[in-house]
């Protein structure tokens, strides 16, 4: 395994700057997730590291070796795409063995057999090795696609939304598996997604991208609890963080603060509102089973907070609320701390 280091990498497609001046280090054995919406530059970053795109400026090093000018095959990386591309007429075994059977590698057949068997067991597809690829479910096909990356034991794994074509249940299952496999192998993983749940649950570190730039890099907990700006704050957390003008609520704000960000855990109900308590009007109580979302209208803005699902609230009821250690942002959206 190896570390990945991208330094001052930029890439434009015509007038569009897809990646701007990006510095990113994926440490040996870490699981880094690049998170961002469509167009944030995450897939381009991954392709630059894989060697599928050439940077306009900057360098890419893998395992301490400058790889900027190397073709993909010489970089010792394995890439898993969003759409699994298996050879449909081949068995699972042959699909998994394919990367090892490349003439350039000259891997003896008994080694191939052992390696495929190991990977198949790791991914719980060993009983299906003789099945044709077309006879598999979607989840099994994606496991084979991931398995094909694993058999090679490359320096790093690059994955581009490998779970996005699967249904919710299978995605949840494979999330946990992928994390376990990465830990067992001590693999270096760079993984791209727009799904915040995948990022939070699997990553050792998350890189939040916006418009081609890396906005923040840190552990899921750092990013969730300590976002550098309002953009990052809205990327993580379900329900989404409430952003309000500071004038809308009674709260002591630090100098320069224009926006206050309150996650559900930052909002408390006030039993006995007094003069100066922020009051909101109940819009709707949404029962989602494990939690209930209360939609509250505060100074012409809508906020969402968690409440007991069995509370007898009606539309139009006034409720006192209090913010506890919320986050503050300035006019440019940057985080402001300290009162």
């Amino acid at each position: 395994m190896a570390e990945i280091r991208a330094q001052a990498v930029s890439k434009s497609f015509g007038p569009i700057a897809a990646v701007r001046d990006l510095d990113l280090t994926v440490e040996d054995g870490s699981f880094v997730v690049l998170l961002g919406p469509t167009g944030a530059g995450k897939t381009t970053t991954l392709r630059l590291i894989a060697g599928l795109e050439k940077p306009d400026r900057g360098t890419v090093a893998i395992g301490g070796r400058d790889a900027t000018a190397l073709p993909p095959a010489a970089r010792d990386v394995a890439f898993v795409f969003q759409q699994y591309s298996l050879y449909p007429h081949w068995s699972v075994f042959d699909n998994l063995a394919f990367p090892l059977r490349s003439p350039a590698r000259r891997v003896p057949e008994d080694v191939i057999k052992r390696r495929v068997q190991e990977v198949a067991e790791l991914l719980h597809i060993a009983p299906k090795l003789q099945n044709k690829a077309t006879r598999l479910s979607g989840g099994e096909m994606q496991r084979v696609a991931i398995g094909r990356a694993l058999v090679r034991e490359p320096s790093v794994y690059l994955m581009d939304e490998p779970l996005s074509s699967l249904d919710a249940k299978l995605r949840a299952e494979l999330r946990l598996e992928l994390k376990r496999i990465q830990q067992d192998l001590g693999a270096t993983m760079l993984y791209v997604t727009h799904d915040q749940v995948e990022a939070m649950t699997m990553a050792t570190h998350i890189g939040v991208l916006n418009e081609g730039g890396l906005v923040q890099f840190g552990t899921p907990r750092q990013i969730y609890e300590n976002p550098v700006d309002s953009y990052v704050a809205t990327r993580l957390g379900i329900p989404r963080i409430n952003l309000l003008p500071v004038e809308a609520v009674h709260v002591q704000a630090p100098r320069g603060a224009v926006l206050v960000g309150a996650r559900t855990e930052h909002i408390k109900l006030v039993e006995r509102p007094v003069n100066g308590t922020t009051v909101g009007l109940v819009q709707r109580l949404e029962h989602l089973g494990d939690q209930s979302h209360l939609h509250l209208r505060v100074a012409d803005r809508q906020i969402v907070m968690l409440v007991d699902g069995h509370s007898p609230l009606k539309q139009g009821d006034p409720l006192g609320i209090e913010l506890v250690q919320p986050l503050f942002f300035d006019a440019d959206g940057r985080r402001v701390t300290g009162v």
Partner: protein
Amino acid sequence: MAEIRIEDLHKAFGDFTAVKRSNLTVGNGEFFVMLGPSGCGKTTTLRMIAGLELPTSGRILLDGEDVTFRRARERDIAFVFQLFALYPHMNVRQNIAFPLKCQGMAAADQRRRAEETARLLRIDHLLNQPISRLSGGDRQRVALGRAIVREPKAFLMDEPLGALDAEFRHIMCQELRALHDRVHATTVYVTHDQLEAMAMADKIAVMNQGIVEQFGSPQEIYDRPASMFVADFIGSPPMNFLRFTGAVAPGSTSVRLNGCTLPVPTIADGRSEGELALGVRPEHILFEDGSGLRGRVFGSEYLGTTQIVTVETNHGRVKARVPSDVAVRTGETVGIAFRTPSLSLFDATSGQALRLQRTAVGHG
């Protein structure tokens, strides 16, 4: 506005039965969601209500009137497919007014109704804009406007948000429900996404293999699933099942799993020796050092406020949702306990829930 009732509705395509003798009532002004996996019969049911399919047997009543064999256009129902289809060469006003134009309504009335509709959807400032200049969200609103401008008796929607990404889908869910709260039109909405159903519905019918497995409010279905299918389909992660063999007597207040006695709500009807499953939602699991029921932590998934901890027990893997400040280490052994009033018990052979007597279910 209208009440929709289906009685003994049955639909077969050759050998394949799509809908089996179903009965449902959608109350006037209700937001009703049919939820189930693909192939469960939800779309076929919707298409029969719309008049796009004829039932093999049974009846459909719209406001008490039998419309079973009435043509689609004679039913005064608006069918909303994926909310995307707009006429690109027309502006917002023309798109919204189009159904009225087709009815031959006077131009002044068309104008007035289109403007009212646009105000309701908060897109009245966009009336003269071409479609190509609109954001994705505004396009969805225009498409919705075209459905509601006719003021039909009911709306039928077939996975209208299916093509959207998760974040935008969530926003549109909120908007659709807010719109419903303003116009109170009877709505039948089909989806396979349990979160959409939970977020919007007054009532949900969970369907499986052509049968309505359960009908009720979102909270009832979540708290007291009628079958293992429903319990597993709703919730993310879904309900955990701890399978065991045993017998339960009516009136008993505990079950025995692997030598461990666990309290349950009072069992109303018993079962002789057989396969049973104890059902527990992830948020109703607690870590308790003293508990006899033990397992090994397989992994934990951080979600901000909470985390999902997967524990391997003698009864299979169990997922618990606990606050993220609870420290757990992969590989350590933990004791797990349950919030008794929230438990469910199933006959694991038939999949049906056993009746339990319970007071109000504790929450959170």
